[in-house]
């Protein structure tokens, strides 16, 4: 009954196995159901949605809702679709992710390899940044953005997300570099490498997994952020999350559910792609920080 299959697996009887698979399949369906509802309904006509079953597949597939959501539907006062906001989000996310990742790496490097008095206190304070709720910083942040003349601009949003992401990125890189052998840094110092040469030539090339983790984390957070977007964006710097809200919550006209579904998928697509492409690095990267060697 129990013959070894995999070295690390616990041997289980066939009845247990059936039970496990049944449970797993149930949860797979449970988790995939919302995605199915969104995809299938975004391909239906509005009449079909009104008349029928949410869970049923579309009778005749139409791409019209997608076209509408992307470039034609009314958002706020203009009928531009989500396209310009999607572009806004890209313009905001890319620099914010790279800046916060780079600065986090630099922080982690300094905090582990160039220890200075009070380093643990500073790290503790930066950790605190991970736990401060967004709402608390809204008003001071608005004041600072006003003073810098960045209020209502994409530059302002990039700054906000970079600063807010630093706590997490520093945490990631610090923990990763803490396990990085200090002797390598010392060897490079004896070789005459400067502070930044050590960083670029020795540390960064060995940081692949943690860079991927940080980028996924930051990309998802910044892309999905709504509160900062709603608070600090202006007329032409609105990110897609806010635009999606404006689309779905518009109080005039007919509620075009199929367009809403398509728009919601459009807004979620980049994070979905990032996860699918690099999700396995995410898990691997998290492990790499935890297990030495």
């Amino acid at each position, binding site marked *: 009954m129990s013959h070894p299959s995999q070295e690390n697996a616990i041997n289980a009887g066939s009845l247990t196995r059936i039970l496990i698979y049944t449970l797993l399949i149930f949860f797979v369906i449970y988790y995939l159901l919302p995605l199915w509802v969104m995809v299938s309904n975004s391909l239906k006509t509005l009449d079909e949605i009104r008349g029928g079953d949410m869970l049923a597949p579309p009778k005749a597939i139409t791409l019209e809702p997608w076209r509408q959501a992307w470039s034609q539907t009314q958002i706020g006062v203009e009928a531009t679709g989500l396209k310009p906001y999607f572009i806004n989000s890209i313009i905001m996310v890319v620099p914010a992710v790279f800046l916060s990742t780079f600065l986090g790496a630099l922080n982690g490097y300094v905090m582990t390899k160039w220890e200075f008095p009070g380093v643990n206190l500073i790290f503790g304070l930066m950790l605190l940044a991970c736990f401060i709720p967004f709402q608390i910083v809204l008003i001071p942040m608005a004041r600072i953005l006003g003073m810098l003349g960045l209020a209502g601009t994409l530059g302002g949003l990039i700054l906000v997300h970079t600063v807010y992401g630093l706590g997490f990125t520093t945490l990631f890189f610090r923990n990763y570099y803490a396990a990085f*052998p200090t*002797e*390598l840094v*010392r*060897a*490079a*110092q*004896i*070789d*005459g*490498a400067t502070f930044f*040469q050590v960083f670029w*030539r*020795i540390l960064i*090339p*060995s940081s692949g997994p943690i860079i991927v983790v940080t980028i996924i984390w930051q990309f998802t957070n910044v892309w999905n952020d709504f509160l900062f977007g709603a608070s600090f964006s202006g007329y032409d710097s609105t990110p897609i999350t806010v635009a999606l809200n404006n689309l779905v919550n518009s109080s005039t006209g007919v509620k075009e559910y199929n367009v809403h579904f398509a728009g919601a998928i459009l807004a979620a697509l980049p994070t979905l792609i990032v996860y699918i492409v690099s999700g396995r690095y995410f898990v691997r990267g998290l492990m790499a920080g935890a297990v030495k060697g």
Partner: protein
Amino acid sequence: MASLTIDKLTKSFGSVEVLKGIDLEIEDGGFLVLVGPSGCGKSTLLNCIAGLEKTTSGEIRIGDRNVEGLHPSKRDIAMVFQSYALYPNMTVRGNISFGMEIRGIDKDEQQKAIDEVADMLQINELLDRKPSQLSGGQRQRVAMGRALVRHPQVFLFDEPLSNLDAKLRVDMRTEIKRLHSRMGTTIVYVTHDQIEALTLATKIAVLQDGYLQQAGSPDEIYNNPVNIFVADFMGSPSMNLIDSTLVERDGQLEIQIAGHGGSSISLPAPDTPDMRAHLNGPVVFGIRPEAMTDPDGADRTSPHIETRDCFIEVSQPAGSDTFALTPLGGKECIARFRADAKIELGAFTPISFNMTKAVFFDPQTTNRIR
């Protein structure tokens, strides 16, 4: 090439003083081994020399130059680390040339230097591999290559052989010794392995608890230890340190040692004013296992051999020798017999003590009595 002088060096981490005033010197072309148990401060001392740790007070001079405050790369040193510290993202070639690249040496010259070092260490065929594709011994060679290519004034080795298996360690030890005699560069070498210290060094410095216990040639350290710590630390098996009582009989000083059961033996002791100061008191009699042998194996050139009957409890054949354990002064003492010496267990057997090798210590201060 240059000499190295360390003058009243102290180093503290916060309130913990790790080095407590080290005075040490090694001449140009010498091989200085820093040896001591874990936590004695030997690696810290090496890092201070390298400039990787800031000293608290005192001075380090390489040649005539005070290197205080100089960046590690400006001290004209090269270091081989315990973990080899090879850059994992670079090939062997990249590892060796990294320092030259940083210093802006031109490509042709780099290539020449790499070839030269690769020939010397026989790592030509490894140049395009990554460190992860190398065995322990190969990594060790590459780490040395990276140091050699700098042609420094002083080489620093931080326990370079401790990650290798026993056989390879012996090979690499020979290799390092050969490299040293070929290049004649001053070397400072940290190890906790006293055999490495004895085989490699021209000068050994024994450290304990941040103090320099003794510095001297391997022969001095081995045969003339200044205190019980040095005597006990150097040598394997370590020196027998036997509790005894110093008495005078017929105008001669001698030590009395409790043996098996109620028996005891007495051995003559040198008559010096210092020894006389301990008359009728306890002294620690120190004698190396190889100075306690079967009578046939005793050193015939020694002018002073004393043979006594001792009770043998255990014998341990070790191939080239046989170690015999005998209780003396309340402890098991090790005598080193010839491999084919007849040893009868549980009986009294004559043992020859080479008294020219005997040393005496004060049990209170642990210092040598001369």
